[in-house]
């Protein structure tokens, strides 16, 4: 049963974490409109270095849009985004390059380069960073394939991979350069429970062993509770709830309960 949450964690006002440790990511009053629709209406959020923040919310609620803002793939109409102490708003694409080297992102679809093999996809960031030695590249790719449990698949083309495999290769590509932060867009959607669990374990392992900061966007509540240090609920373009997984489980707020229990408000009747 979900019980009463601590009242200070439930607010319709923008929420900002205040902590002595420096945040890896700080989002301040971010507003984004796409066409006539206001997707983000003043999002405030901080992600501390080394923690895993899970952003949950209903489909079409702007979670992926928010995630893309964090790596500069989208630009907000208002607000600030600080990554590792740098405000990325106003930076051009080339200036963003140095910030993006610190951040890996796993796209919902994997976004593998379809003209390259699995090995070429995974080695891509290293090759672009100037590593030319084929032996070094191959060794590092093999290590990553072992991490994602896909040994011996390096010669396959993306079209011959399943959805889960594509995501794992995408993940390997995003972490091979050992970024200090990884953003995951729906890492377990469309995967069977076993593969989903292996992805969750991988996210936890990266946090524990390498101290990577992670931001995970998901609908999968099992995954959220598995990996999160903190959970933020994005509702109507704002952070509606921010707290620990335990606090979320204890929340009595009807909007949160509807989401957690998967209840519709009857509009489909």
């Amino acid at each position, binding site marked *: 049963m979900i019980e009463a949450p601590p009242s200070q964690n439930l607010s319709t006002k923008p929420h900002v974490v205040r902590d002595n440790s420096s945040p890896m990511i700080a989002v301040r009053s971010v507003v984004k409109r796409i066409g006539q629709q206001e997707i983000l209406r003043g999002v405030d959020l901080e992600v501390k270095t080394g923690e895993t923040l899970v952003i949950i919310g209903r489909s079409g609620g702007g979670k992926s849009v928010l995630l*893309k803002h964090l*790596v*500069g*793939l989208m630009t907000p109409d208002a607000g600030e985004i600080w990554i590792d102490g740098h405000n990325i708003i106003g930076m051009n*694409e*080339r200036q*963003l*390059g*140095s910030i*993006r*080297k610190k*951040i*890996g*992102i796993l*796209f*919902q*679809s994997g*976004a*593998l*380069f*379809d003209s390259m093999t699995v090995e070429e996809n995974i080695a*891509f*960031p290293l090759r*672009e960073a100037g590593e030319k030695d084929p032996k070094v590249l191959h060794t590092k790719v093999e290590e990553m394939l072992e991490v994602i449990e896909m040994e011996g698949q390096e010669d396959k083309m993306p079209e011959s991979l399943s959805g889960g495999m594509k995501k794992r290769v*995408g993940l390997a*590509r*995003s972490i091979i350069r050992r970024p200090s932060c990884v953003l995951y867009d729906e890492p377990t959607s469309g995967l069977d429970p076993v593969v989903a669990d292996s992805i969750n374990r991988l996210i936890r392992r990266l946090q524990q062993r390498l101290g990577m900061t992670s931001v995970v966007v998901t609908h999968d509540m099992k995954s959220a509770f598995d990996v999160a240090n903190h959970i933020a609920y994005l509702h109507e373009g704002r952070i509606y709830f921010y707290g620990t997984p335990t606090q979320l489980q204890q929340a009595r707020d009807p909007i949160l309960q509807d989401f957690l229990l998967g209840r519709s408000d009857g509009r489909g009747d």
Partner: protein
Amino acid sequence: MVRFFNALGTPVLAFFQYLGELVLLAGDTFHSIFTHKLRWKLFLNQVVEIGLLSQLVVVITGAFTGAVFAAQTFFQFNKIGMGSATGAVVSVSICRELGPVLTALMVAGRVGAAMSAEIGTMKVTEQIDALRALAVYPTDYLVVPRALAMMVSMPLLVAECIAVGIAAGYFIAIFLLEINGTYYMANMVRWTRNRDIIMALSKAFCFGILIVFISCQKGLSAREGAVGVGRATTEAVVNSSLAVLICNFFLTMLLNIIYPAGYQ
């Protein structure tokens, strides 16, 4: 009245916005060419894609254009006893107009469409976002190798088209139409000057630039999945072809001042 001006203004604004995007992409690409390291492997792949794999299309276009042009010219000129001038007309026309324009139209159809479709598919499947997220600037990775390969390949393709066209015209004239070969060659060499070749190669270079930027811009701005990619590809071919034909007129007028036609 307001509605009338609105209806008139919207497409005009859209057109100028499109031109602006093309100019920005071109500026960004040239800036990148001069300030950033070239990815040689991608460049050479594109040279193969644009230059080598377009050979057959260009050779067939050149050969049959030269052949039919020689035949038609002979049919008309022979009536007034000027059949041996066929070589000069075929050679100068293919150099100054037909070679560059027809090659550019064929390349726009074959290469422009492929560029737009490939980049457009990458755009709608988030591969371009993935490039950006991996700190790779899409212009450097996608546009620069294509633009440079086009700048190198187009003049060579046009030169090939011209050579094949002239050769085909010669064979038709000599072996089929039975024109005197000596007069044919003498007239052709007399009336065809270096400036005709320079004009052809200059046009080829300009057309190559037009095709590559129009096609890449259409690909980079593709939206809405498969339909969007299809639309971008069609627009890339149509816009490239129209741009080639329109610019050809202005280039002809301009280059004719610098390199006037005829025996001087």
